[in-house]
């Protein structure tokens, strides 16, 4: 089971290396959205700084959502998902590996460029560890929850809007906790509570969503 997990991640890595645009799109989107805020709000550093936790988290959330629409689409269209459903390995393990690969190559890249963009918004350097921590704990939850929606809508021709409607409400706790942690850190308040809540959400998502993703994929393949 561990072997198939690793070979699926290797397969996804190969596919992404051969079509790097898929990797770059969410990152460029993230960077552009963050760069647009100062243009829209104005260049006052104090205002941007106080807004930056929310802005960064909103942009990250939308970037993850954007990248999730196509998560299972190509596997659905070329028949790979049928083979997954009939595999002797549990579909939930394959789904978890797929989302893990997606997060490793797009979520993690997002976390890596976030500090640069945060500094652009005037977030002080002392807040960067909390920014990184909250994104590291929060983005896997965003990917996993989004994958549930992506699995359910993969069979639909235009699933994008429906995916957003299904999934955005579920993102609310992560958004509140993630930007809350950063806001608290900015004001010099303790953040352990926020981060621990995020960590528990991450654990919950890793343990429960693979089953929901697998069920969604079965329904989509069975249509």
């Amino acid at each position, binding site marked *: 089971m561990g*072997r*198939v997990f690793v*070979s*699926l991640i290797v*397969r996804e890595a*190969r*596919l992404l290396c*051969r*079509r790097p645009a898929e990797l770059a799109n969410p990152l460029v989107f993230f960077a552009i959205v963050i760069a647009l805020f100062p243009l829209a709000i104005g260049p006052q550093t104090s205002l941007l700084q106080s807004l930056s936790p929310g802005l960064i988290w909103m942009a990250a959330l939308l970037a993850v959502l954007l990248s999730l629409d196509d998560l299972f689409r*190509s596997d659905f*269209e*070329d*028949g*790979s998902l*049928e*083979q*997954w*459903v*009939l*595999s*002797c*390995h549990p579909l939930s393990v*394959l789904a978890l590996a797929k989302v893990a690969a997606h997060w490793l190559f797009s979520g993690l890249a997002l976390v890596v460029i976030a500090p640069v963009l945060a500094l652009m918004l005037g977030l002080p350097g002392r807040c960067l560890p909390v920014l990184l921590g909250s994104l590291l704990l929060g983005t896997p939850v965003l990917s996993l929850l989004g994958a549930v929606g992506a699995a359910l809508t993969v069979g639909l021709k235009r699933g994008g809007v429906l995916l957003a409607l299904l999934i955005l409400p579920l993102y609310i706790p992560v958004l509140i906790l993630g930007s809350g942690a950063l806001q608290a850190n900015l004001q010099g308040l303790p953040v352990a509570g926020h981060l621990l809540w995020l960590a528990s959400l991450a654990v919950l998502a890793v343990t429960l969503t693979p089953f929901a993703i697998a069920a969604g994929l079965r329904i989509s*393949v*069975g*249509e």
Partner: protein
Amino acid sequence: MYNPAPSECAHLSCRPSSRANSGNHVVSSPFLEAVAVTCERDGRVLFEDLNLCVGAGEMLQVTGPNGSGKTSLLRILAGLMPAASGEVRVRGGAEGLLWIGHAAGIKALLTPEENLAWLCALHRPADRDSVWRALAAVGLRGYEDVPCHTLSAGQQRRVALARLYLDAPALWILDEPFTALDRQAVDGLEAHLAEHCRQSGAVVLTTHHALTVTPERYQDLPLGTPT
């Protein structure tokens, strides 16, 4: 319709069949058995009360016009799609069958070798040598490491069919396996399917093409016109 040979279970019908026959099935534990399966799509009944049973050495060809439910039947048999009613039993569950659908799960960005190695890893892992042998068997020697999108449709189909030349479960369910293949590849595949049946395997397939080589225990299941 019903084949009376005692150790065999070949029988199929599209009407409720005499249930007394089912006593024979227990003896040889067929690879695949469907009882009173009904398929409904978008409110139309494609077929109802379909019974069939496929045992070792048998080939079942599902025929019928476009839209008569051939692919739906195969997907129901493979366990990919739930039947509206009825029951399908596969010996060994999903692990006991090999499914190659119309879309065969071949990634255009991966090479034939990578594609095949991954498909094998999903079911029964195969080493590099056997993957290369299987690709050579379907006439893709020299194409092992070029991306599949540079291959023709027929060559891509051959990549999918190379799985039949690897260690595979005994029951094969193939949806239109001959699509896009050239004459020579069709003959090779027909012979391979017949050989698989001779070695106590079983094949269920759909195709519009008339098979020239069929195993001894071959049956034809015509599905009706959609109403």
